[in-house]
């Protein structure tokens, strides 16, 4: 049975990755799961300089999901290159570095510094709903997305995946803009902008007022968007949004994703990623599927 998938020339041992921002750089969850079992670790977003993030409360639970407004707290690219990459190099898994910034120059600085780093792929976060400047502004207008993607592609030494926001009217248009600008792949969905109000205190549940909704509650929206995006472009799609088990992961593959990422559910069950790897193998065995490529985009009318 072959579970290997290839995205932009990079081969992954299986299609199961971690969703950026939910798994740090793998250190914390390496106590629970063998990182060697994963297709890739997608790291938390890293900027050119350290970011302090938003005030607390930064997280709150919602029905079947959660809202977060961490605000991309990160230690900056220099610490990341010195500490996080060597940690991940100890494992036989692919390294996908998520890059964030407040201006095009910020992104380019990170991408250039990663040029000589031993990482497999870059995921560009143009869709974080929780930082005021930059970030999502690049991901909500097709022409802005085209522009930043083109500029990053000129500098990047590794394949570039653009992480798209679901907070748009037409996801297919955004996917096409990324493809037209030369992106090697796209990943979606980032979180959906949401809000929660504490009726007893009459205050916002999050200090940032709004936050990004993730968890099983958003899965049907994510599957729909992965389906639409993957049918709009020829470049590969990494699908995510509320994946909790192998059945969910297979749904994304059938919708058109070449790989999947597990996010909020790591918090609920820290073994989710490896259980999905095993569950996909069992599914393939059950249905006599020899190559996982048979599943990708395999939904029938």
């Amino acid at each position: 049975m072959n579970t290997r998938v290839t995205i932009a020339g990079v081969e992954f041992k299986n299609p199961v990755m971690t969703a950026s921002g939910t798994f740090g750089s793998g250190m914390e969850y390496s106590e629970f799961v063998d990182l060697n079992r994963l297709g890739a670790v997608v790291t938390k977003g890293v900027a050119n300089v350290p970011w302090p993030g938003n005030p607390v409360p930064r997280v709150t639970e919602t029905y079947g999901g959660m809202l977060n407004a961490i605000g991309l707290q990160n230690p900056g690219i220099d610490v990341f290159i010195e500490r996080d990459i060597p940690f991940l190099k100890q494992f036989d898994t692919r390294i996908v570095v998520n890059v964030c910034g407040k201006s095009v120059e910020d992104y380019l600085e990170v991408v250039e510094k990663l040029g000589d780093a031993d990482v497999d792929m870059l995921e560009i976060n143009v869709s974080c709903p929780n930082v005021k400047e930059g970030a999502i502004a690049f991901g909500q207008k097709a022409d802005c997305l085209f522009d930043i993607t083109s500029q990053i592609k000129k500098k990047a030494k590794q394949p570039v995946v653009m992480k798209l926001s679901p907070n748009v009217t037409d996801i297919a248009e955004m996917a096409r803009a990324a493809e037209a600008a030369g992106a090697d792949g796209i990943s979606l969905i980032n979180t959906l902008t949401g809000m929660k109000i504490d009726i007893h205190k009459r205050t916002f549940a999050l200090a940032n007022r709004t936050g990004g909704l993730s968890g099983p509650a958003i899965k049907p929206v994510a599957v729909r968007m992965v389906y639409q995006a993957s049918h709009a472009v020829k470049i590969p799609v990494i699908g995510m949004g509320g994946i909790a088990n192998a059945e969910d992961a297979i749904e994304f593959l059938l919708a058109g994703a070449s790989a999947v990422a597990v996010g909020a559910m790591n918090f609920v069950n820290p073994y989710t990623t490896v259980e999905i790897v095993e569950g996909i193998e069992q599914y393939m065995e059950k249905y006599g599927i020899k190559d996982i490529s048979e599943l990708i985009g395999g939904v029938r009318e």
Partner: protein
Amino acid sequence: MNRKRKEQARVLSQRMIAPDIYDMWLETELAKEAKAGQFIGVYTKDASRLLLRPISICETDRDKNALRIVYRIAGKGTAEFATFGEGQSVEILGVLGNGFPVEEKKDKRVVLMGGGIGIPPMLELLKQLREAGTEAAMIAGYRDRQLFLKEDLEKYGKVYIATEDGSVGTKGNVLDVMRQEELTAQVIMACGPMPMLRAIKHFAKERQMEAYISLEERMACGVGACLGCVCKTTRKDHHSHVNNTRICTDGPVFDAREVDI
């Protein structure tokens, strides 16, 4: 080092010990590894509620693999926990957090302060300090005459009581007891609501005492990955490289001088 893990624990017993305050003993291997001031994450059985509820460890019985939590109903998740009966299984994540510096401070004169639902972790702390040869005094601050855990605490040390309504002991808070009883110590270890911890931080600074305070914050992962539960620090944090530290992993117990609360 013990590995953090998610386990199925079994409820040994549960009872209400004050209005909305529940006392639950769980059977779990994690009991052997728990240090005073650490906590576990308890998951609800309702799939619509995803995240762990961080609850401090009140007491452990290593020989029986038993771990005790005493918690207040604060919402629907903890209300669900209160319905758990003997024999039921519960998913828990642990052991989380750093704990109080029992070994490091065992030769000092220590006073413990617990306020409200911050009292439970003081029981295991008092017990572990005594095992280490330290006779610590305990000041427990309650709202009223519902003195939950008082008898348990008294097994391991001298207990002073403060109540907000003045119905028992000193009228006021834990620091009012310090002043009124003219207690002295080199080290304070405390858990309680933020205004109490802030007051302790200032009190300790004024009197040139050390203070270790246990903080809480809304948490998602509980293991240091999501950066949800941070606290401002006075210096740049070793992990984050900004003035933020992770309560779930670098805490919940901090040297009061190191946190900006």
